[in-house]
């Protein structure tokens, strides 16, 4: 479905001094992997690991410095915007910030139907989508600020599903949510992926969350994939020291409670 090869992306930072070159930041340094149709592919890493850059490249919202991305056998990394039409309906994103990812001045119906353009039957589609993400039909006339964080993520999901994509990219889609709401949205994502037979790329800093929804995981650090494999294998038997550190550092309720019992 998606094939990434030797992907690199570097940015020039703004000048820190008048003389001398502008410092270069390597966000991605040679990343390669394949995602099969129907796979639930997790990408785990901390801030600065390059995972968000990777998501943007996969959605063709940014261009790599070198390397290639193919989508269903077609190179997409070097296509001009006007020839990316086929990808724009196939790949959709849900972002982290439940407020910042919805235009505060648009009504929910306009937000959800935005990727649909002037297609006929938009109204019905919006109603259908609201139902699919568990929002009432009268939500369509309201503005984003009238909803809670979890509901806003549902609106984002509805927008992403509108053009009937085959791939859903979730960039820290549940990280800003409270535990209870997080679980509901995770369950919803899992359900939607199942129902619409989506390929899921799920990016998170939280290995525990990735484990709940993904079958495969890539662990990233400083622009590189340090470990890649089936999620349970990586979780239960991490090979790379960084993966081990990540797992050990994650607060673990069961372990903490066990510790309390012993005292």
């Amino acid at each position, binding site marked *: 479905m998606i094939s990434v090869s030797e992907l690199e992306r570097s940015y020039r930072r703004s000048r820190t001094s008048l003389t001398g070159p502008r410092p270069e930041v390597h966000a991605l340094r040679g990343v390669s992997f394949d995602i099969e149709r129907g796979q639930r592919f997790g990408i785990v890493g901390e801030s600065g690991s390059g995972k968000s850059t990777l998501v943007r490249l996969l959605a063709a919202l940014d261009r790599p410095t070198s390397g290639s991305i193919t989508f269903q056998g077609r190179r997409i990394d070097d296509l001009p915007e006007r020839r990316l039409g086929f990808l724009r309906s196939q790949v959709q994103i849900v972002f982290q910030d439940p407020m910042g990812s919805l235009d505060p001045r648009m009504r929910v119906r306009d937000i959800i139907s935005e990727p649909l353009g002037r297609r006929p039957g938009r109204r019905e589609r919006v109603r259908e989508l609201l139902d699919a993400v568990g929002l009432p039909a009268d939500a369509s006339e309201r503005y984003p600020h009238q909803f809670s964080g979890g509901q806003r993520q549902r609106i984002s999901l509805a927008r992403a599903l509108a053009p009937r994509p085959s791939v859903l990219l979730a960039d820290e889609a549940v990280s800003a949510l409270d*535990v209870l*709401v997080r679980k509901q949205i995770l369950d919803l994502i899992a359900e939607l992926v199942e129902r619409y037979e989506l390929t899921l790329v799920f990016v998170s800093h939280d290995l525990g969350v990735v484990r709940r929804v993904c079958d495969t995981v890539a662990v990233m650090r400083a622009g590189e994939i340090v470990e890649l494999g089936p999620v349970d294998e990586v979780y239960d038997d991490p090979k790379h020291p960084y993966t081990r550190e990540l797992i050990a550092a994650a607060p673990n309720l069961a372990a903490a409670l066990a510790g309390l019992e012993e*005292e």
Partner: protein
Amino acid sequence: MSLLSVEGLGIAAGSLPLVEDVSFTIAPGERVGLIGASGSGKSLTASAVMGLLPEGLTPAGSVRFGERELLGASERELSRLRGKNIAMVFQEPMSALNPSMRVGRQVAEAMSLHGTRDRRGAKAAAVELLGRVRLPEPERTARAYPHQLSGGQRQRVVLAIALANDPALLICDEPTTALDVTVQARVLEVINEGVRDHGSALLFITHDLAVVATMCERVLVMNEGRIVESGSTRDVLGSPKHEYTARLLEASA
């Protein structure tokens, strides 16, 4: 004798109650966790204790620190307590620091401001404190500006400022939520050591049950402005009585 005793605390925005009938006590040196979802009123409760409620919100009830009643106390009286007897660490370390002042001076100022140390003593003590929160090369770090440090390092500086005057009570409001997991683990460790070395009591606010379980001996669960359950961390998280706590646990497992 409790250090902090909150009784029947209510906070309202006009006629809209945000926090209702919240009562708890913290003994000297005790570590208490306050957990709940966003909007449950846990941060407001902490702000009320610090006397830092946003304008338009009115507290009712009683917040006693030792013998002193804090609700209704004058701003002058409160500012003398703040940073000296009660210190606070917020979620966002960048906005808690002055971007145009070297961090060493900010730590030193916390001490000279409250007269705990003279100017020169404060400078040396600041470097020592920065080392105690395990910042690398404390002498060099003291000369750095906040933007030159990482998020975890900044939060340690904030912690150093908070601990500078050996406060009797340290309030931490989601101090590690903005940090990476590997960094979070280290900052939690430093907070733990800090309150132990300085003999401070801790009120730790978080939405993360695992974090509270590693940090606190007693826990209060808040939902919709009320404390729905409280007790030792082991009892509350091991065998929750309230349905809400049980749901939180289930979602966190």
